[in-house]
């Protein structure tokens, strides 16, 4: 359904937040002593698929690294949702903002079937009108 959006007339960015303090004790957590949250803002992408691939890689890398440092009982996973105004399918997460396309969540595997999850990471993909200084890469 993303194809219904005018992808060619838009730029794309993503943001992500990892709640380091809420992670189980692991090497990654100890590499950021005293830090509770790490938030990142991406560069602007001229292409949705590059943006989408980058945010997936970022979240996959984080979850794979953290999981490699934890026992099997404390593994994390990622799920994603597309803004329901583009799919017509109700999403678990609410309060989508203008231009927001998709969200990814990082949470404990044990919470997979829970009604509400306690996420330790979140990424959001946004589209915005293509600017004159758009990065062609």
């Amino acid at each position, binding site marked *: 359904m993303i194809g219904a959006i005018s992808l060619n007339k838009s730029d794309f960015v993503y943001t992500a937040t*990892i709640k380091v*303090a809420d992670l189980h004790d692991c090497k*990654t957590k100890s*590499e*950021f*002593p*005293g*830090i*509770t*949250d*790490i*938030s*990142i*803002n*991406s*560069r602007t*992408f001229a292409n949705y698929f590059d943006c989408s691939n*980058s945010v997936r*890689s*970022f979240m996959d*890398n*984080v979850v794979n*690294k953290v999981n490699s440092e934890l026992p099997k009982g404390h593994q994390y996973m990622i799920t994603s949702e597309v803004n329901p105004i583009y799919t017509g399918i109700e999403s678990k997460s609410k309060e989508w903002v203008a231009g927001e396309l998709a969200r990814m969540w990082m949470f404990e595997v044990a919470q997979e079937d829970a009604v509400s999850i306690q996420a330790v990471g979140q990424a959001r993909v946004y589209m915005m009108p293509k600017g004159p200084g758009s990065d062609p890469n």
Partner: protein
Amino acid sequence: MMITPPTKSFYVVHAQGEATDQIMEKLSPSTAADIKEIIMISADFPEDIQAQNEMDSTVKKLSSKLENITINTIHNPLYIPASAEQIDEVLEADGEDNFRFIGMEGNPFTLKSTRIFRGNEDILEARVACHAFDLPSYSEIIRLQENKVLN
């Protein structure tokens, strides 16, 4: 003319460009080139000196591999001994006996700020701040100082 913030302190680091590299190395090296900026927020510390020491340690780590940089640290003289000229503005609120201080570029609750520049490019900014509280009036600060002297 210092005051002691009655709230807990924390620090915030805002890294851009090359200053994000060391953070991304630990999280996701393969997407480092796609990241424009990173903001890190610390836990609350009961004493502001702890927040300052932790921030200094973090800034030192993040800047250790950066070359040709200028580091500029300023303290807000409302909270930490420093030159009175470092107060950015003193604004009169309502009446001559009711001054309010606005320090550190409009955020009165910033205790200390460290900025790293490369040329004119601002690549890292770190601030120790305390949570908001009712700032005392000028006359109240004077009264507190006088009480300390008399005691």
